[in-house]
């Protein structure tokens, strides 16, 4: 399993009801089903991904995330996951709201646009960054809403969402003193665990 998914798997409580947005080939859900006894559903809209989910024996619903989560009732899941997808949806802010409507909490991961390699490319060469964690050229990228960790945290504050856990890593999914000190400069990927702030 991808390291990113292993990190998330460790964050999931046993027996949870889980919704995985952009579940891909279903390997995270398959793992959670086998090892954590979760009742999980994945959402994806790629034919190959759906086929892989069927093969893996996980629940999957073919749907475009941009069509929203209106089909799910309030609080119908304990946890809503979205790995490496936030930056590719049409309205990430609205989707975050929806995730915390249908779920008690959510875990979101996304690549950091403020990583020093990106800053350097933009500052020194005046070019759109292409990096290991952001491998696409500007014209062929699915990432239409890239942000930095600071941007994301500002959005959470504006929306009154509580970040209960943050986990920042480098490309090799390692943590380190430098990353802990300057996450928005040296981290490539962040894992955020969010809840709605209750009055």
């Amino acid at each position, binding site marked *: 399993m991808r390291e990113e998914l292993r990190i998330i798997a460790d964050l999931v409580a046993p027996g949870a*009801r889980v919704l995985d947005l952009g579940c891909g080939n279903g390997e995270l859900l398959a793992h959670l089903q086998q090892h954590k006894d979760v009742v999980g*559903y994945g959402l994806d809209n790629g034919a190959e991904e759906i086929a892989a989910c069927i093969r893996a024996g996980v629940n*999957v*619903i*073919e*749907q475009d995330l941009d069509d929203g989560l209106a089909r*799910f009732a309030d609080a*119908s899941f304990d946890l809503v996951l979205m790995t490496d997808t936030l930056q590719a949806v049409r309205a990430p802010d609205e989707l975050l709201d929806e995730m915390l409507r249908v779920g008690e909490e959510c875990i979101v991961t996304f690549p950091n646009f403020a990583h020093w390699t990106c800053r350097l490319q933009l500052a020194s060469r005046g070019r759109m960054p292409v990096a290991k964690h952001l491998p696409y050229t500007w014209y062929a990228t699915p990432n239409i809403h890239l942000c930095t960790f600071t941007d994301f945290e500002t959005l959470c504050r504006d929306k009154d969402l509580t970040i209960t856990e943050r986990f920042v890593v480098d490309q090799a999914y390692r943590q380190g003193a430098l990353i802990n000190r300057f996450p928005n400069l040296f981290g490539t990927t962040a894992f955020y665990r969010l809840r709605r702030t209750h009055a």
Partner: protein
Amino acid sequence: MFPPPDSVGIVTPQRRRFGALDLQCGVRLPAFELVYETYGELNADRSNAVLICHALSGSHHAAGYHAETDRRPGWWDVCIGPGKPIDTNRFFVVSPNNLGGCHGSTGPRSTNPANGEPYGPNFPNVTVKDWVRSQAMLADALRIDAFAAVIGGSLGGMQAMQWAIDLPERIRHALLIACAPKLSAQNIAFNEIARQAILTDPDYRDGEYVKAEANPDRGLMLARMLGHVTYLSDDSMGDKFGRELRSGDIASGHDVTFQVESYLHYQGRSFSKTFDANTYLLMTRALDYFDPAHEYGDDLVAALSVARCAFLVVSFSTDWRFAPERSDEIVDALVAARRDVVSVGVEASHGHDSFLLPVPRYLAVLSEYLDRVARECGQ
């Protein structure tokens, strides 16, 4: 070459007689027969059986040929055969004709033992629930405790859904294709127009047309023409027929027949020769009355919470008879009921009829899902 290598080849319908069945309408059928076909072999632990449920105008003849001279194979030959999605090398496929049908199972053309005459219009109302019970009696007779899967499109999918709710211990997977949790007012309206076409045909003779040696050909033809329009999409009709003329020319207005008209006439006429009018009335009523949520306080989530099987729900983008939104209702209820479900929306241009056609993505999804079902029963 006959038969094609991916065909089950020549098949022979079988027939079984059963004792009394108390129907949902309160009438007791003292005895009845089901005609059915089987394809493939039942494995040693009898775990690889799948049940095929047919739709409105289907029959037990789902795959293969009855004779080398048959022009066409069974109605779902696209999906059933060696190496096909419902792989007869791995599954034992059971395909009955529904009770009340007109292809050999006890129905309006059968003799009523009470008076020695054909049942005709007096054949009792049968429901999807009744079909499930009669199919379970067939399973008992074949010593099949549980089906690895119950599979159906349209009205067939409704039977699979009812199986999941009524006999949760006897079904491992339910495959609901181009299905709906109940009919909409518009669906019922179309059915009622079809019924009125039959009922108002002078040759219907209050349903006693067999005794009168007549047949409401006209009514059946109209019913089928109307049905056919609802099975296709605007686009697929456009692609297939456009505004092409079969004869005449529009400028003079003489003898103008559009291709689509001639197609519908042909479909309607051939249907009226092979299908029984009372069966058509009965099948459309079973469709109209289907509503598994009703006995659970009109709560579909509660109804599906009873199910123990996993579900595959497939819809087609241009199906407007049972649109993808209708499948979504089922899927959403399954999620709320925390049942296992895979939901796929297939882009297909042929409307409701897509479920009978070789749409590549559709067949790939069925194959993938049924491969998993087969692996689970050790095939």
